[in-house]
């Protein structure tokens, strides 16, 4: 009984620590800006369109929620989202890279506004 109680108490105390240690890395927008080489060729050109496998306007990501940007990159990396170039690029990104890029692109003050 005593042992069960101790174990329960330990689990209750340990769980938040475990959750904390697995939390997503926090993003650094300055580091993110240095990692945009692979993004800028499509996402930084106003009016740019995809070429393959379907043609449509490349989504604007400046000002997007950082959490959503990370979620999208993870979905490309896992294959859940299937755009070929995005899958290839996201596969090379670490969790820290994703957080940094999200912090850079998701900054609420756009550096250059372009419609």
């Amino acid at each position, binding site marked *: 009984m005593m042992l069960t109680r101790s174990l329960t108490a330990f689990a209750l105390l340990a769980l938040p620590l475990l959750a904390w240690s697995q939390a997503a890395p926090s993003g650094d927008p300055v580091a993110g800006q240095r990692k945009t080489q692979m993004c800028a060729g499509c996402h930084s050109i106003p009016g740019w369109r995809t070429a393959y496998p379907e043609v*449509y306007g*490349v989504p604007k990501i400046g000002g997007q*929620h950082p959490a959503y940007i990370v979620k999208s990159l993870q979905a490309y990396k896992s294959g859940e989202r299937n755009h070929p170039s995005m899958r290839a690029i996201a596969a090379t990104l670490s969790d820290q890279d994703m957080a940094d890029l999200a912090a850079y692109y998701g900054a609420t003050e756009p550096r250059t506004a372009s419609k």
Partner: protein
Amino acid sequence: MTGPLRYILAAALLGAAAAAGAADMKAGEAKAKEVCQACHGLDGNNPTPDYPKLGGQRPDYLAKALRDYKSGARKNAIMASFAGTLSPQDIANLAAYYAAQPPVLVVTH
């Protein structure tokens, strides 16, 4: 792909695009109030971090995302159920509507 098949396919694609018709902003707004607003906001500038902002997003990207949710090419349980109810005309209307909202999304240089 060569010969007549290419032209037939091109005509079919043009036909599909034309079938969706010109976007109707009023109808898009009405559908946005009904289906999208609760999560994305009526102006597409929602505060919920997990859901994308849509205001000022490119209309053909929005339409593609909705088509992919509807077809299952893009997997998301929440969006699949909403997009599944949309007709091609609804998708064209909604894409045009959110693209025309104040641009909270920008091309960042």
